[in-house]
């Protein structure tokens, strides 16, 4: 394995972490939006706030991590993606601003209407950002991003069936992950009725995400043959693993009070992301740019690996500390949802 391959692995690790942690956060925003009005809706939103409050900031640092590793290690790919996909990436950035602002302000907005506006912003942008990031992934997978400064089509590169399906799949997967997480959070908060309602939602989201994943395979077959072939050959074991884990989640959630669904939900997402990575290898941009050709200067790649090593040593224990303190409720929002 070359240094460039190792750095690509680092990049993919960041993508995976963002998909799982950032995805669960986006999904929580989705459920906050879908919670509806009335007392039940209010309490569901309070649970979402309470669950993601201490961790949401750290969860989104993974995106910065991915961007930085991409432009440092594979600058030409970064240039190609960000210039051709100017529109969806601008919209994703817009969603990130609205989402962060909505989340930062909704707790401090005393007046109800202000709080309602902030919450809706948070919810709607939680849909926009993963959707547009999904269209970007679809554009890359289908080879619509040529090298150079804005060399690809600014519109059809991301406004095509594959991009739209992947965008929808990202939203559904986020909602699915979040619902599974919120089942555990509701249990931790001691609110059995919300635990039950998120269990039902998790089942529904699992069905939608599964259906979209199947639809995605069909579109991939038609539109992104390289990745499709990879997923059905080299990546097949991981795809099967993902499907099995994905099926285990609804099986575990079929009865109230079941445990262990969280680990399988995460495993399903991780497995499919790595299956995708294996399918796309050795390409960074399928059939346009390989990892080896796209890699920056060797000293830079080595530096990225060193920095990543330091990050593992420093950041992983710190995240573990934060999550442990949160799970033990030593670090928490002011009030538990009632």
């Amino acid at each position: 394995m070359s240094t460039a391959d190792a750095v690509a692995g680092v990049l993919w690790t960041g993508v995976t972490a963002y998909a799982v942690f950032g995805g669960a956060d986006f999904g929580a925003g989705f459920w906050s939006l879908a919670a509806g009005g009335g007392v039940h809706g209010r309490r569901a939103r309070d649970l979402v706030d309470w669950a993601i409050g201490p961790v949401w900031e750290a969860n989104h640092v993974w995106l910065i991590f991915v961007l930085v590793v991409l432009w440092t290690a594979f600058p030409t790919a970064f240039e190609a993606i960000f210039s051709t996909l100017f529109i969806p990436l601008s919209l994703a950035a817009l969603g990130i601003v609205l989402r962060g602002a909505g989340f930062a302000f909704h707790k401090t907005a005393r007046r109800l209407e202000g709080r309602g506006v902030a919450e809706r912003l948070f919810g709607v942008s939680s849909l926009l950002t993963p959707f547009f990031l999904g269209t970007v992934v679809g554009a890359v997978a289908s080879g619509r991003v040529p090298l150079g400064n804005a060399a690809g089509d600014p519109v059809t590169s991301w406004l095509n069936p594959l991009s739209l399906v992947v965008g929808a799949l990202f939203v559904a997967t986020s909602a699915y992950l979040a619902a599974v997480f919120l089942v555990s959070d509701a249990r931790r908060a001691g609110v059995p009725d919300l635990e039950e309602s998120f269990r039902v939602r998790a089942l529904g989201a699992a069905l939608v995400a599964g259906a979209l994943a199947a639809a995605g395979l069909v579109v991939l077959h038609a539109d992104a043959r390289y990745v499709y072939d990879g997923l059905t050959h080299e990546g097949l074991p991981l795809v099967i693993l993902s499907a099995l884990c994905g099926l285990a989640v609804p099986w575990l959630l079929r009865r109230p009070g079941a445990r262990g669904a969280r680990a399988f939900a995460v495993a399903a997402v991780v497995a499919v992301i790595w299956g995708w990575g294996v399918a796309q290898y050795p390409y960074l941009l399928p059939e346009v740019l390989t990892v080896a050709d796209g890699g920056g200067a060797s000293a830079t790649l080595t530096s990225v690996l060193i920095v990543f090593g330091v990050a593992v040593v420093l950041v992983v224990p710190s995240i573990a500390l934060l999550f442990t303190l949160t799970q033990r409720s030593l670090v928490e929002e002011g009030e538990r949802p009632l």
Partner: protein
Amino acid sequence: MWLPDALPLASNLEAARSQMAFTLGFHIVLASLGVAFPAMMLVANYRGLRHDDADALLLARRWSKVVAVTFAVGAVTGTVLSFEFGLLWPAFTGRFGEVFGVLFAIEGIFFFLEAIFVAIYIFGWRRLAPWTHFWAGVPIVITGLGGAFSVVAVNSWMNQPQGFSPTSGDVTKVQPLKVIFNPAVPYEVPHMILAAYLVTGFLVASVYAVGMLRGRRDRYHRLGLLIPLTIAAIATPIQFAVGDTAARAIAKDQPVKFAGMECVQQTATHVTEYIYGRCTSSGVKGGIGIPGFDSFLVGFSTDTQVTGLDSVPPDDRPPDNTMLHWAFDTMVGICTALIALGLWLGFAWWRRRDIPQTPWFLRVTAVSGVAAVVALEAGWIVTEVGRQPWIVNDVMRTEDAVTKADGIWVTFGLVVALYVALGVTLVATLRAMSRRWRAADESETEVPYGPPDAVPAGVSAGGAP
């Protein structure tokens, strides 16, 4: 430049530069708060615990809520900047990402740790043991400094690029350590970190000065003024010395930038230092001229030769000369005035162990926050506009770095609307928090530490994130 259809590329350059300047100018204030405010919060926290000072502890607790809000907004505006590396300047990042990127990777670690410990500190007030909680705040200060170093070192590298080859065409070889420790780092990094402490100190102090002018002269307000103002008063003279060193270094390393800052048209000795005035090709019109002083400032002798703008072709000179010159003079002028404010405080403290009694002291302190922010923005105009037309000094032109994608004027318009709303909401939110706290002061006392049962109901209901 106002006819985007006629000149698409020139228009893209103007739009991209405007958007970058606007978003960076917005983020830099929040970033400064993010770097320096946690330190002041911890000073108050330490005082509160060490001296059993309930006022200091209450300040620390409330400041941490302000840190939470500004950090969240700063994280968002910072994310936008990292998108803009690709959305606005893809050719720059495509060519040099592998050179300067490692610094951002290092910054990523610092930012990650900062986000984690900010969360632990902010959400840990009730359940963590007091000193454990204090120590959970210390990494925020350290990572803030590290993050500032990494980001500003990238800007330093754009001013003093080195550590890569070849200098034209695709980069094939990178020496990361030469990139990280480029020659502009020793003055630019401390200059920015001190600016962060200075801006935060005066800004926070100005809030309490306004409160005292409105008659709230209790110990809580005096302490809220004194802690940040003392830190800022210490930072300001050091900043003046660092800035002076930086200006001399720029006169040597980026002489054309310096010529633009000082409106020096022809290379000469005995160059006059102009305070303000209008820059024209035939010299400075208006303004106050001090003969020979510019030469003296550069080399401690009026015989010192100062490089003029005529040393390079017109295409290689920075634009908007008068604005650049005014920005430089404004920054230096405000810093000088803030030193005087610090001396005033220091003198009164030395004589009477108290802040000056006259309302004029409070009035001046009340405007010092805005003045410090103006100086900060002026400083960034100096370094960014002064480097033009280059994005990487003498290596890559800004016009060659900009995206060829359409629609930048649209995103610029959106960004302005969005950020104005963001800024207004942020200020309104902070003011609402302050009003709520004032109301809480009149009803009951907050208890920061203690078992959850002992926490009065009002505390968590008023809780910011």
